[in-house]
């Protein structure tokens, strides 16, 4: 447990741990705010245990430049290669945006969990985004050429090629997300019922931009069937896409539906329910990773102050069963007594063990 007043560096510490696990912050979208103002770079050095093996992972974060990573003092080719060594599930006040924010927040939640499950998807997602950017650029220039009466055949002749690559990478990402939501849904429903038993039942579902054209049936999602469906949909939307200059089909337009009873959680859930839902998503993710044989480090950043007594109690029950839990709090009394472990006081960027 890390206790200290606001602005002393508690979140900074757990954010660094989360960064080693996901190569991203739970707080901000870019790397720049992670580095002390006016400094060129930040370094995160961690000693951790992965399947009974002690490892050190070192990350150098240099905004605007390529980040560097070392495992056991040896440099690795890409920072991406450290993904999967440490697994964390982090719950923080920012998670309210999972329920109330834009679909992008929920896509990021799915993709981050996907990468924790199988680090390979970091590459799939990066490839998909690169193809998407290229294709959007092509749609813009081809659309402009067409409107200008210049035909744009030059651009259109390559659009088929980009369609093929978008469908290929997109199908891989989409199939992985469908399987993920399949596995996650019952865990989230159970976690929500546990956190808020008096509330309506929670159900999550995946909504694809393919709509009805999404191939269904079968135990697991079928990548080649989805590739075909994406290609067909891209063909149908082509003239609309050329007009607007953006790709209209693909996992970047999809949504994780959060339903409460009959209504969507966004807009219909109360403040307390929204908190419970965000918590249930994180707890579901935690249970999912555990069920697959890893013990993720559970990080609870400043959340007990935001929850009422029963939700605190429920969260404490889950946390107690976890192998390792890191809790930050401004007020020690907010944290249920049974979570009392080793305590550290954080003041002015210094961490001291409390005897």
């Amino acid at each position: 447990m890390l206790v200290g007043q606001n602005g002393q560096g508690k979140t900074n510490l757990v954010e660094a741990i989360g960064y080693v696990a996901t190569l991203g912050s739970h707080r901000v979208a870019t790397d720049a705010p992670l580095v002390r103002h006016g400094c060129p770079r930040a370094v995160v050095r961690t000693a951790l245990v992965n399947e009974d093996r002690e490892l050190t992972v070192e990350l150098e974060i240099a905004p605007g430049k390529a980040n560097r990573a070392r495992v056991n003092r040896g440099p690795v080719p890409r920072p991406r290669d450290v993904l999967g060594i440490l697994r964390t599930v982090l719950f923080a006040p920012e998670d309210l945006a999972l329920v109330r924010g834009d679909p992008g927040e929920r896509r990021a939640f799915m993709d981050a969990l996907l990468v924790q499950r199988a680090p390979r998807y970091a590459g799939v997602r990066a490839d998909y985004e690169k193809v998407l950017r290229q294709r959007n650029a092509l749609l813009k220039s081809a659309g402009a050429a067409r409107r200008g009466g210049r035909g744009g055949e030059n651009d259109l002749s390559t659009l088929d090629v980009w369609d093929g690559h978008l469908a290929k990478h997109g199908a891989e990402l989409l199939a992985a997300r469908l399987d993920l939501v399949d596995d996650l849904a019952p865990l989230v429903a159970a976690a929500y019922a546990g956190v808020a038993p008096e509330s309506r039942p929670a159900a999550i579902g995946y909504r694809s931009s393919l709509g009805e054209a999404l191939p269904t049936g079968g135990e697991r999602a079928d990548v080649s069937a989805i590739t075909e469906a994406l290609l067909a949909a891209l063909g149908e939307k082509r003239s609309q896409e050329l007009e607007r200059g953006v790709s209209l089909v693909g996992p970047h337009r999809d949504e994780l539906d959060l339903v409460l009873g009959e209504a969507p959680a966004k807009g219909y859930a109360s403040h307390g329910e929204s908190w419970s839902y965000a918590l249930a998503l994180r707890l579901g993710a935690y249970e999912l990773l555990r069920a697959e044989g890893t013990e993720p480090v559970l990080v609870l950043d400043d959340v007990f102050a935001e929850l009422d007594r029963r939700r605190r109690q429920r969260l404490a029950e889950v946390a107690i069963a976890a192998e390792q839990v890191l809790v930050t709090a401004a007020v020690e009394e907010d944290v249920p007594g049974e979570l009392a472990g080793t305590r550290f006081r954080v003041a002015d960027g210094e961490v001291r063990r409390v005897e």
Partner: protein
Amino acid sequence: MYEGPVQDLIDELGRLPGVGPKSAQRIAFHLLAADPADVGRLQDALGRVKEGVVFCEICGNVSEQTQCRICRDLRRDATVVCVVEEPKDVLAVERTREFKGRYHVLGGALDPLAGIGPDQLRIRELMARIGAQDITEIILATDPNTEGEATATYLVRMLRDFPGLTVTRLASGLPMGGDLEFADELTLGRALSGRRTV
């Protein structure tokens, strides 16, 4: 900031790829202290690079004459053409000493973000070459990244209608001298799907 010509030199050097401000400063002061003859040779080389270098009219590689050394070499197999993105890729393939055919340099890869489409690459020249010469195999050796793969896919589409032409793509797989356990999943997955019977 230094005064006058030294700072100008540092600024110019700093714009080169792979040269940061510290390196630029180091090179600038090295040149300042160097033997005038050495600096003269560098000056000459820089002067000649823009005027003296032409691109081979057949393959598009950098050359001293209208046709490059490889295209003029009659011992090389003219029926096999290896398609690469940049002149430096020709050098990379040449270093293997495995390839006895000719080259075709595209001058880049499809990259809509940078405004590069088929018309900006030497694709039309490639088609003309295949039509005019007796070429039986095209080896696509573009980079195995997003842009290079898209270029290869595009070329496959363009070339499939030539009768009797075989189009091949460089295999991708594990680096020699590497460890299987350290290979990333993508590379290992590709190596698996592209495995050979031995």
